[in-house]
């Protein structure tokens, strides 16, 4: 164990201040926290809750239904991140739809989906564009490339989301935020500073064991001091101004819209869709996708889990009807989801 880890661990294990609820907003943080066993070394007064920052978990049921409709009814090739393949829609997932003949291709980046479209002019290719501020620029780059190359058989089915609305919706559920480092690498830290001025504390954190422990150590130490604060604990990646190029790229091609978050509901202005000038790359427009309300399984409590109101094992279907093999809710299907992490990494050893 290296020195930084030891020092941060000592600060955390010796913490005897007031009870501190920390919401790790980001699903990748959730995953790493479980993978490293960080919860197991924390004293009782430090409580970690898993927030809504897993794009798969908050993607509404209707979005999966739309994707399956495009694949089966319109015969398009659906390109997607692997994360989405097993997410249950109302009746099927992309994985089960594949068995019915849906063309589903897993890609590493939206840019590969665009290239696939360029190489297969006879096919219509739709990229399932999910993700937060970190991921949206890649989708915009893919559309820009299609514009430049005159590729007309490529489009996005958008469900892109932005975090500020979610921070606003979640701020009363937690004492402080462990902010998602890679989101703020794009947006900068203005929003975090602003929230601190309003009394909402937080730290921006990286993803390695040292970075996570150091950020948590900073967070609880400052919390004990009692004043609202923001500390950027990930300056090697996150600059105060973020990525101006990414910001202007997205602003040129997309605009905010109201967006449904699975389990939470509609958060005004928290979505991103293609602007009218880019509409020919919008799959909903191109294929006249009908409105799909989507029906989540009513037994699922993912919504309360995402808000930090419920721990996964407190949900009635957790580990019984709902397992990673047969997920009922999206928090179980994504390996970054709180339920899946609790289930896979165990609670009692």
């Amino acid at each position: 164990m290296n020195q930084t880890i030891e020092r941060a661990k000592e600060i955390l294990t010796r913490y005897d201040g007031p009870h501190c609820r920390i919401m790790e907003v980001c699903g990748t943080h959730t995953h790493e926290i479980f993978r490293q066993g960080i919860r197991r070394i924390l004293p009782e007064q430090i409580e970690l809750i898993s927030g809504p920052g897993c794009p798969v978990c908050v993607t509404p049921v209707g979005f999966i239904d739309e994707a399956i409709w495009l694949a089966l009814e319109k015969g398009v090739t659906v390109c997607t991140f692997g994360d989405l393949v097993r997410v249950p829609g109302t009746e099927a997932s992309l994985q089960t739809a594949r068995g019915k003949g849906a063309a589903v291709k897993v890609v590493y980046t939206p840019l590969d989906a665009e290239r696939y479209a360029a190489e297969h002019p006879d096919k219509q290719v739709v990229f399932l564009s999910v993700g937060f501020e970190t991921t949206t620029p890649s989708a915009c780059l893919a559309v820009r490339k299609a514009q430049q190359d005159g590729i007309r058989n490529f489009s996005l089915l958008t469900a892109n989301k932005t975090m500020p609305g979610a921070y606003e919706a979640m701020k009363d559920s937690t004492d402080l935020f462990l902010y998602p480092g890679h989101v703020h690498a794009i947006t900068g830290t203005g929003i975090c500073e602003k929230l601190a001025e309003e009394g909402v504390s937080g730290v921006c954190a990286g993803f390695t064991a040292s970075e996570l422990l150091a950020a948590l150590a900073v967070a609880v130490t400052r919390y004990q001091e009692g004043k609202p604060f923001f500390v950027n604990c990930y300056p090697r990646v996150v600059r105060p101004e973020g990525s101006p190029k990414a910001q202007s790229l997205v602003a040129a091609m997309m605009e905010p819209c109201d967006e449904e978050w699975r389990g939470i509901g509609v958060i005004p202005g928290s979505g991103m869709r293609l602007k009218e000038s880019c509409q020919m790359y919008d799959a909903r427009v191109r294929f006249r996708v009908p409105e799909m309300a989507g029906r989540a399984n009513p037994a699922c409590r993912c919504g309360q889990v995402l808000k930090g109101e419920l721990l996964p094992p407190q949900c009635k279907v957790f580990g019984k009807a709902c397992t990673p093999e047969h997920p009922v809710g999206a928090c179980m299907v994504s390996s970054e989801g709180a339920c899946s992490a609790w289930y896979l990494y165990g609670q009692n050893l």
Partner: protein
Amino acid sequence: MCVGLSAKVVSVKDDVAIVDASGARRKVSAALLSDLEPGDFVMVHAGTAIAKITDDDEEESGALLDLL
């Protein structure tokens, strides 16, 4: 939410960089960064280099703890 990988830039041409992470190489978009040069470290997410970075998480985390 955003799996990132730090990688070293091997070459850059136009808006495309080849990056290397412990011997695994891939073309990524460099369109979001200016003045990228071979030898720089970047954070890669979903096929795009999203930030120029330093590669030492230890030093940075250590420095944060020093301030406490």
